[in-house]
């Protein structure tokens, strides 16, 4: 009886049109990925506060829950229950739009990142675009509008200056960020993130950080600048700008700015892991190839997701660590570093890899290897 029911249920499953399967799996992946991202955002905040405390020889939030693990819940409740005030004289529409315009791009990047190989036959990426990396740059370049709008909407000079500085910084470092990963395109021969990971799984020496270390360094610095973190947190330089655009925002809108910063830190780490640290793979048997479509394969698929999350968490920790170790750059130093040091270095790096790859191709042709 139960067997018959099961069979008829399986028959019913088989006749569901493929499109609906695809839609259901995609929605599940989107939901899981966004839920995971927001969960990581909440705990990155705790991590940051605890790490900062340990570095500064104090304890940090340790009262709510064991080791302060319930702190995000307390912060969230506080942000939701606070009065959602709007200061007088702001541009209302832009004032509402700005936090969303910052948060949405940070979450949209998620769509193309392969956070695992596959589970069953489902690839663990929401949209496997052939221009995946360019998509991430397009989305990241949109996030600058959030900061510009926040500075403009406040209609007050300090947030405005903070917004202008931050947007100038983001535009400057976007160029370096884009140029820094071109050697990865050339080495992997594709802009698709899954293909870039496939290129890195072949051996540990194929990891992007070993093949293109200067790209990795430039990309890491540009990631710090893009997510407005120390040593590049011009928008919120409290000594000079009294907190920048944060002054005008309160309650949940402020929390959205706060979360967007951490979301972009996490997404930056995830992209770094994908490009330079082999994504979901480890150079070990079973873990260096996409999971098979079997019960064991499903287990390995989950392990791949775990590896990806662990690597991303390490990068997030590194970024948090950097924040509490380095002083803030002055604005002219920041621009000087971006345009006169990193940009030429990124260009030289591209030429170097182009010549190198061309030389290897010529060598192979001449000696018919």
């Amino acid at each position, binding site marked *: 009886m139960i067997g018959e029911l099961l069979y008829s249920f399986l028959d019913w*499953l*088989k006749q569901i049109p*493929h*499109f609906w*399967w*695809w839609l259901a*799996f*995609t929605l599940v992946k989107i939901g899981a990925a966004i839920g995971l991202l927001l969960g990581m955002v909440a705990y990155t905040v705790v991590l940051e506060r605890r790490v900062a405390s340990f570095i500064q020889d104090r304890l940090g939030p340790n009262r709510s829950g064991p080791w302060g693990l319930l702190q995000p819940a307390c912060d969230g409740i506080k942000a939701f229950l606070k009065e959602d005030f709007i200061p007088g004289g702001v541009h209302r529409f832009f004032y509402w739009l700005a936090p969303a315009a910052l948060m949405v791009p940070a979450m949209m990047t998620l769509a193309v990142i392969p956070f695992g190989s596959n589970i*069953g*036959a*489902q*690839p663990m990426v*929401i*949209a*496997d*675009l*052939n*221009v995946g990396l*360019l*998509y991430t*740059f*397009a*989305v990241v*370049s*949109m996030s*600058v*509008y959030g900061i*510009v709008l926040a*500075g*403009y909407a406040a209609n007050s000079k300090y947030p*405005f200056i903070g917004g*202008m500085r931050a*947007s*100038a910084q983001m*535009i400057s470092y*976007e160029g370096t960020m*884009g140029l820094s990963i071109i050697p990865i*395109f050339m080495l992997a021969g*594709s*802009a698709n993130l899954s293909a870039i990971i496939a290129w890195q799984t072949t051996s540990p020496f194929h990891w992007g950080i070993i093949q293109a270390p200067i790209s990795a360094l430039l990309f890491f610095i540009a990631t710090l600048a893009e997510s407005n973190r120390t040593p590049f947190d011009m928008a919120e330089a409290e000594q000079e700008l009294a907190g920048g655009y944060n002054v005008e925002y309160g309650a949940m809108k402020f929390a959205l700015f706060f979360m967007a910063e951490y979301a972009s830190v996490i997404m930056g780490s995830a992209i770094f892991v994908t490009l330079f640290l082999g994504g979901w793979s480890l150079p070990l048997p079973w873990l260096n190839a996409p999971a098979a*479509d079997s019960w064991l394969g499903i287990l390995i698929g989950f392990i791949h997701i775990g590896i990806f999350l662990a690597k991303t968490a390490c990068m997030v920790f590194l970024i948090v660590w950097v924040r509490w170790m380095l002083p803030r750059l002055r604005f002219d130093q920041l621009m000087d570093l971006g345009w006169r040091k990193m940009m030429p270095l990124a260009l030289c790096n591209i030429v170097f890899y182009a010549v190198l790859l061309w030389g290897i191709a010529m060598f192979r042709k001449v000696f018919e290897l």
Partner: protein
Amino acid sequence: MWETLTNYNWENLFSILPGALVFYVLAGLAILFGILVVANPFSRSPINSGLSLLATVLSLAGMSVLLHAYFLAAVQVIVYAGAVLILFIFVLMLSRKEMKMVFTSTRIRYAVGTVVALALACLLLSIVFQMPAAAPVKEAVDGTVPAIGRLLVTEYLVPFEAISVLLLAAIVGVVHLSKPNTKGESK
């Protein structure tokens, strides 16, 4: 059952949504925001115009996606929305004092403007009516990065290089203009 699922990817979303519907939504948005760029009834603020232009650019990028030209769509967003428009808005914000400026015009300007707009409308309409009915595409255009890169360094090499010389000229111009004036008083 599981094997068949891999054949499905996100592009299939377009196969069930009527392509024409998506096109008309995007085209409508592009036109709506295009009008808001030049004639916003609610505000004459240049920032609003700039942001409307952003929405237009994003709608056009959506149309490129509809044509499966993903590279073009991504580059459109990176270059126009991410770089050019943000610089426009940047400059508009820096000229904040002038923002309360009221656009005044004389009758002659209105007359000239009307004539030019009508002439342009006639030109565009004549092109629209001369256009043959849409024919099926003869060969599929490959919109991937390698395909476009190959075309740029083979078939379209000369125009490509000519554009880069043009951009170089712009860079040299900026360097010249921003150089401190050494002849006169020092800054």
